[in-house]
């Protein structure tokens, strides 16, 4: 991946594409690259929908190689939702294809002079940018079908739905999966709105004729990959729990812990949880679709296969297996215990191009405002349709929970830096609350997700039993996660690496043998810190202050049943997270 494809959508005479060497961005991938480009080239004070913002789509360092689990992709920009720097992450096929096409990143720049909608087609021989008004307001499913009909069944598709075209701050960018369905999304932070502001409806990639990226030390790479895969397969989480139940395996456990945000973060337990648990979901999928329906990879080379396929009551495909976050956001957080309705909401979010977390949190705020009742599944479905159609109410909802709360006078809005909290109540698991408050991304559970921080020795040693251990743990997790987000690796590898020293070593060997450079814990720390420093500096210049590294006040005052606890981490401690 030695070049960057820059597409200026506002060039005189029409959009223009230019491939240039990676230059000073050499050696970067994924989040490292998106944050480097955004922090260097985007004025922090710009309007996120202006010509000065850039949308950077970057596969990881290993994407396009034969490394297992390396199909993740990063999408970066200044976020219309948070006003700060954003990296949203997705699975699907395009990451590997862009890697094999040789691009370290695709950068959308500028802005068309009018509202012409474009599609971009990229092969190894050309980059074609064409206006296509027939795509206007198409849902992602119909759009991808149209692109397949036009360009064949070997393509990968990166697209926005109507929400992105309408530049809603809850809009996602969709990435097609192995079946060429638009089911994988870079959801958080309104990246879809930025793509919409550039007038780009779809980027179609076709890597026909391209080979897998070759490692510098092929034999070592092959051996490391073999050990890595074996380690993932034998571990209880990556080899059994996730392929059997998917991420929704967490519902029962988080609910039992009393940290399952219920009815707009009112309670920590949902009494309808059994109906929407991962166990129930897997049985439903396997019963309706046949054994194995609950096991599916989001990209070729995924050996964990935490996704699945959800069929309706009549056995027809409805959507990919809803993730834990989606089932929570549209389920427990809205008081809805109907798995079929939640699956429909997932389908609609994918089709309209919406972040399921933001959408679910927004509907819950709308329910608190009395727009519809908690537990009203059909009412929630209608609200998402309002968003997709762009009605006045839909325009409010599509711009997220913070806007919705402001419009309808709701105090209890669970956001940090304007972005909705995910599916863990910070009063229950307070260390996650530290991450929600302090990450550069707004409330985000994946920003501090790489639990191998202690194994990697990232940040030095921590006494986890000390009260201030939470601050140091969150710091180390954020550093390690930022680094892993640059590799293209799926974060779910983390548990196997945590427990199995040989699997951890295999990952280091994979990275080292691919690049030809040995990777140490210090290197990981340095990379993670570099990324976070860039992001923090961007945010500061964008006007962020330390007062924004806080949870909403009511989390410190309102006790969460069943444990009746409040968020107790002091503001002065939160301010220590980035002290290094």
């Amino acid at each position, binding site marked *: 991946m030695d070049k960057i494809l820059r597409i200026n959508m506002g060039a005189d005479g029409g959009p223009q594409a230019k491939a240039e060497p990676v230059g000073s961005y050499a050696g970067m991938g994924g989040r490292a690259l998106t944050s480097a480009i955004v922090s260097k080239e985007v004025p922090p004070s710009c309007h996120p929908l202006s010509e000065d913002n850039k949308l950077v789509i970057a596969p990881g360092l290993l994407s396009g190689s034969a490394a297992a689990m390396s199909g993740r992709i990063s999408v970066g920009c200044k976020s219309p939702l948070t006003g700060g720097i954003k990296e949203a992450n997705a699975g699907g096929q395009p990451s590997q294809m862009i890697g094999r096409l040789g691009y370290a990143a695709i950068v959308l720049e500028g802005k068309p002079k009018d509202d012409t909608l474009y599609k971009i087609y990229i092969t190894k021989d050309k980059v074609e940018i064409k206006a296509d008004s027939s795509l206007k307001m198409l849902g992602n499913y119909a759009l991808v079908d149209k692109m397949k009909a036009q360009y064949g069944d070997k393509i990968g598709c990166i697209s926005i739905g109507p929400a992105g075209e309408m530049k809603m701050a809850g809009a996602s960018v969709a990435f097609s999966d192995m079946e060429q369905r638009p089911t994988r999304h870079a959801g958080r932070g309104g990246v879809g709105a930025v793509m919409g502001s550039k007038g780009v409806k779809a980027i179609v990639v076709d890597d026909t004729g391209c080979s897998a990226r070759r490692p510098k030390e092929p034999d070592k790479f092959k051996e490391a990959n073999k050990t890595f895969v074996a380690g993932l397969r034998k571990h209880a989480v990556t080899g059994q729990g996730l392929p059997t139940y998917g991420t929704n395996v*967490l519902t029962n456990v988080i609910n039992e812990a009393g*940290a399952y945000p219920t009815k707009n973060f009112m309670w920590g337990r949902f009494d309808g949880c059994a109906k929407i648990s991962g166990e129930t979901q897997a049985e439903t999928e396997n019963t309706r679709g046949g054994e194995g329906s609950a096991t599916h990879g989001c990209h070729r080379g995924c050996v964990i296969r935490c996704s699945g396929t959800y069929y309706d009551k009549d056995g027809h495909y409805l959507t990919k297996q809803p993730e834990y976050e989606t089932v929570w956001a549209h389920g427990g957080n809205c008081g809805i215990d109907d798995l079929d309705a939640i699956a429909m909401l997932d389908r609609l979010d994918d089709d309209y191009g919406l972040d399921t977390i933001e959408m679910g949190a927004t509907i819950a705020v709308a329910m608190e405002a009395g727009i519809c009742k908690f537990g009203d599944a059909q009412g929630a479905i209608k609200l998402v349709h309002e968003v997709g159609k762009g009605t006045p109410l839909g325009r409010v909802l599509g711009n997220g929970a913070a806007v919705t709360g402001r419009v309808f006078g709701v105090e209890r809005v669970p956001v940090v830096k304007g972005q909705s909290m995910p599916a863990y109540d910070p009063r229950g698991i307070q260390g996650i609350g530290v991450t929600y408050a302090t990450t550069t991304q707004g409330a985000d*559970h994946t920003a501090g997700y790489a639990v191998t921080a202690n194994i990697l020795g990232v940040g030095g040693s921590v006494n986890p039993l000390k009260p201030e251990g939470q601050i140091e743990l969150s710091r180390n997790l954020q550093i390690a996660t930022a680094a892993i987000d640059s590799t293209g690796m799926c974060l779910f590898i983390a*548990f196997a690496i945590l427990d199995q020293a040989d699997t951890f070593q295999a990952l280091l060997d994979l990275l080292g043998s691919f690049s030809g450079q040995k990777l140490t814990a210090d290197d990981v720390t340095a990379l993670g810190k570099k990324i976070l420093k860039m992001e923090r500096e961007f945010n500061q210049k964008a006007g962020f202050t330390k007062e924004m590294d806080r949870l909403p006040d009511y989390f410190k005052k309102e006790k969460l049943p069943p444990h009746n606890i409040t968020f107790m981490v002091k503001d002065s401690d939160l301010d220590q997270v980035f002290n290094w």
Partner: protein
Amino acid sequence: MHTGRVVMKPRNQASAAPLKLSLTMSGNAVSRFLPILGEGILLKGLGGETVEDFLLKAGAVSPVYLKERVQTVFLNGKALDDFSTAQVADGDSLALSAAMPGLAGAVLRRGGFYAAMRRQISHEAQTQTAAAGEISVILKLFNMVARELGPEFLKQGVLVSGDQLRNFVERQGRWAWNGCLAAEADGQPVKVSQIAELVRGREWIRLSVQGSV
């Protein structure tokens, strides 16, 4: 603040004997009943026993399995790090899970490195010994633990509330009794079409489910 309807209340167990419902299922159909175990089954034990002893005596659980497979444990909703010292008491709720993914999984893990991040919901060591005597405990089995231990528990028979079974049947819809080869209620053969009526109004049901040989 009310947290929602509680499905099982072992202290209020009705004096009427539970209905004994035995099902013989074909193929993989037994697995359809595993989610019921996640809602809780009622077990008897002795007050003051450690969680570990209680589980070993409950049957179908070996010490090795407990140590290596049961990576996440909750006692009354609090994450438990040491089940060889924590004691069970009448009315307790115990939940067992395999290792969970992601940060939450690592944080909730029994004796895990990241336990500090959930200190406020960690089980604290007891200072008093729980009262002796026969006790009732709700046991919940989640995910792979349900998959691995569940079939034997179901074969032996589990005590579930009538509401649990009725909700399960409603959720399953037309698949509820797919694969059911034989059914007995209180030792008498019954048709699957009769089951809904038989369980109506029953507070407790001893459900046993086994696969056909």
